[in-house]
C-alpha cells in the first residue's frame, strides 16, 4: 500500500549498441532488484523529459541488467538516442501480461517479426531457447526494409541460425549489399508447410500494417484466432489500467496485454490503426 505507483526506480545506461540507422539498444542496470516476464513492458523515464513504454529485448533470466531496443520515433525516443553511457534513467514496471510461454509447451512456435518488432521477440526467443526441448520447434520469419535495417545482426545472421530446433528465414523489402535472400514483405516467406498448423502457436510482432497482413495470411492458412498472439502497441502511459490512453475495446493494453490473441480483439474496430 505504501508503494507509490508512479514512482520509478533509478537506473542507468551502461552501454549503447547501434543496431540500425534508426535503432539503438540500451543496456540498463537498475539500482534495485528488478525482474520481468518475457513480453512484459517497462516505462522508461528520461528524468525531467518524459517516459515511454518498451518491452525489454533481453532474457528475463539476466537479472543484473536489461536491454531495451529503441527506435527513434518521437520526442522521448529522440532524446534517448542522444544519451551517452552513464545516463541516469527511471524505470517503472514491469507491466502487462507477457507471453504465456508455459502454454506453448509441446507445441511448435511460429514467430513472425518485422523491424523493431524483433525487440520483444528477441526476449521471447532467448527464453524459448533456454528450454528449447519443451517445444517441438521454433520457426522464425523475420523481415526488415533492407539488410542494414535488421537489428541484432550478429546473432540473427550467425549463432541463432545454428541452434538445434530453431529454423530462421529472413526477407527484406529491398535488396542491397549483396543480399541473396528473399526480397519482399514478410508475408512472402510464410508458407503453410512451415509448421503443423493444428499444433502451432503463432507470435506476431511488428508495425501494425505488417501485423494486419500477417494475421490475415495466418487465417488463410487456417490458424485459429486463439492461436495467433499479437503484441499490440497503443499509447500505454500509466501501465496499470487507469489513465485510459491505451484502451483497445474493453481492454487496457497496458494491463490486459500487451500480448493478445487475435480471438480477444478481432471484433473491435480499427485495431490496426
Amino acid at each position, binding site marked *: *500500500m*505504501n*508503494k*507509490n*505507483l*508512479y*514512482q*520509478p526506480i*533509478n537506473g542507468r545506461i551502461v552501454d549503447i549498441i547501434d543496431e540500425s540507422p534508426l535503432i539503438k539498444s540500451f543496456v540498463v542496470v537498475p539500482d534495485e532488484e528488478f525482474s520481468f516476464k518475457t513480453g512484459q513492458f517497462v516505462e522508461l*523515464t*528520461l*528524468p*525531467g*523529459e*518524459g*517516459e*515511454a513504454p518498451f518491452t525489454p529485448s533481453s532474457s528475463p533470466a539476466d537479472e543484473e541488467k536489461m536491454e531495451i531496443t529503441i527506435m527513434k*520515433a*518521437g*520526442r*522521448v*525516443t529522440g532524446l534517448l538516442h542522444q544519451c551517452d553511457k552513464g545516463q541516469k534513467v*527511471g524505470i517503472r514496471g514491469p507491466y502487462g501480461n507477457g507471453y504465456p510461454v508455459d502454454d506453448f509447451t509441446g507445441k511448435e512456435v511460429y514467430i513472425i517479426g518485422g523491424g523493431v518488432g524483433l525487440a520483444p521477440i528477441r526476449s521471447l526467443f532467448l527464453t524459448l531457447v533456454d528450454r528449447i526441448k519443451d517445444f517441438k520447434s521454433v520457426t522464425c520469419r523475420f523481415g526488415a526494409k533492407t539488410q542494414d535495417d535488421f537489428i541484432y545482426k550478429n546473432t540473427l545472421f550467425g549463432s541463432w541460425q545454428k541452434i538445434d530446433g530453431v529454423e530462421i528465414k529472413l526477407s527484406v523489402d529491398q535488396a542491397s549489399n549483396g543480399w541473396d535472400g528473399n526480397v519482399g514483405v514478410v508475408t512472402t516467406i510464410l508458407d503453410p508447410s512451415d509448421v503443423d498448423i493444428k499444433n502451432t502457436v503463432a507470435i506476431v510482432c511488428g508495425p*501494425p500494417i505488417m501485423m494486419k497482413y500477417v494475421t490475415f495470411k495466418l487465417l488463410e492458412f487456417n490458424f485459429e484466432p486463439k492461436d495467433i498472439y499479437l503484441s499490440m*502497441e*497503443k*499509447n500505454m*502511459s*500509466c501501465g*496499470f*489500467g*487507469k*489513465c*485510459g*490512453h*491505451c*484502451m*483497445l*475495446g*474493453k481492454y487496457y493494453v497496458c*494491463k490486459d496485454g500487451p500480448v493478445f490473441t487475435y480471438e480477444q480483439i478481432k471484433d473491435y*474496430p*480499427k*485495431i490496426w*490503426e
Partner: protein
Amino acid sequence: MEAVFTSKLKTLLDAVAEKFLLYVSSKNEDHYIYNKYDQSGKRSVEFNAIRPCAPLKEFLFPVRELAATYPKELKADDIKPFAVFGLKECDLRSIEILDKVFADEDFKDQFYIKRRENMFIISSDCSEPGETCFCNLFGGQGFPQMGFDLNVSKIRDGFIIESGSQNGNDFLINHSQLFGDVPDTLLSERDGNRAALQNQLEQNNQKLKIDAEFKEIVENAQNSEVFDAEAANCIECQACTRICPTCHCFYLYDTTQQDYFAKMKMWDSCMRFGYASMAGGANPRKVLGDRMKHRLLHKFVYFLERYGVNMCVGCGRCIDTDIGGVDLREILKKLNEEDTKTKTVK
C-alpha cells in the same frame, strides 16, 4: 445512526470547520461552486438546491498533482483531513465509481486513497432537480442513503442532519449540545420532500426513459452514423469529460525543478485529438465521431463489463457545459431509436 435538527446551517459548518479544512458550495451567478468555508460569515453559505457545477473528483484526484519526484521519493503523507459540504447523491455515486478505478484494484493509487480516507463527507438532499438532471435513469433518487459521514436534508424551518458512518456518528455525539432532537413530524416532512423530489425527477425524464439496457444500445451502435452527426456540433473543448464526475483519464508528464525531477499527473480527455496517438503518428481515433463513440462505449459498455457499474451517474453536468449543444440524453435516445428500428427490420 443519529439524526439531529438545527435551524441554522452555520451551526453545523462552524463545528465542522473547527476540526477540518472545510469546503462548501457557494453560489456563483446561476450555479454553485466549492469555496473554502469562511467562518466570518462575509461570504454567505447557501444550501445548494442541486449539485455544484464542479465535480467532486477534484478533491480526490486534483486537476494537476505531483505523482512522483526523483531521485528523492515522494510520499503521500502531507495530505491533511478535510471536509466537503454540498455534494449530492450523484456525487456520492461518482466516488463509488472512482474507488473502483483508484482504490479497488490490484494497483492502488496511494494519493487518491489517502485523500479518500481524509475526506469528511457532508452530503445533502437535492431540493428540486435541475433541468439537466437525469440521475433517476441511472438508479439515482436525488437524496443520499449511504456513502456519507453526514447528510443534510432541508426542511421548512431548518435542517435535519443524519450520520452515515462511525465518524459522522461520533461527530454528532461530540457536538450534541449544538443540535436539537428531531421529532417524527420533521422526519415525515423530509420524507414527503423526498417523495416529491423523486416524482419530479420521474416526470422530468419521462420522455427519456428507454426500455433497453444502455449497454445494449451503445454496443449495437458500432456502425451508427449518430456519432458523426453529433460530432458536427462538438467544438472539441473537452469540457464534457473534465466536468464529468466519473471521467478519470489522466496524463503523465515529466518536468525539471531546481533540485529534483517530477512526474506530474493531470486530467486528460479522450475527446482530445492526440489522446490515443503514438510516437510515429498512429492514432486509432483520428475522427471526432470515433472519439465520441469511444467515450460512450467506455461509459456504458467497457466500464460496466469490467466493474459491474455504468460510468455515468446521470448528473447532467456534461449537458450543462456543452457549448455546441451535444446532449448525452438525446444521443442515447437516438441510438435507442436506431436500435429499435434495426431490430424491427430484422
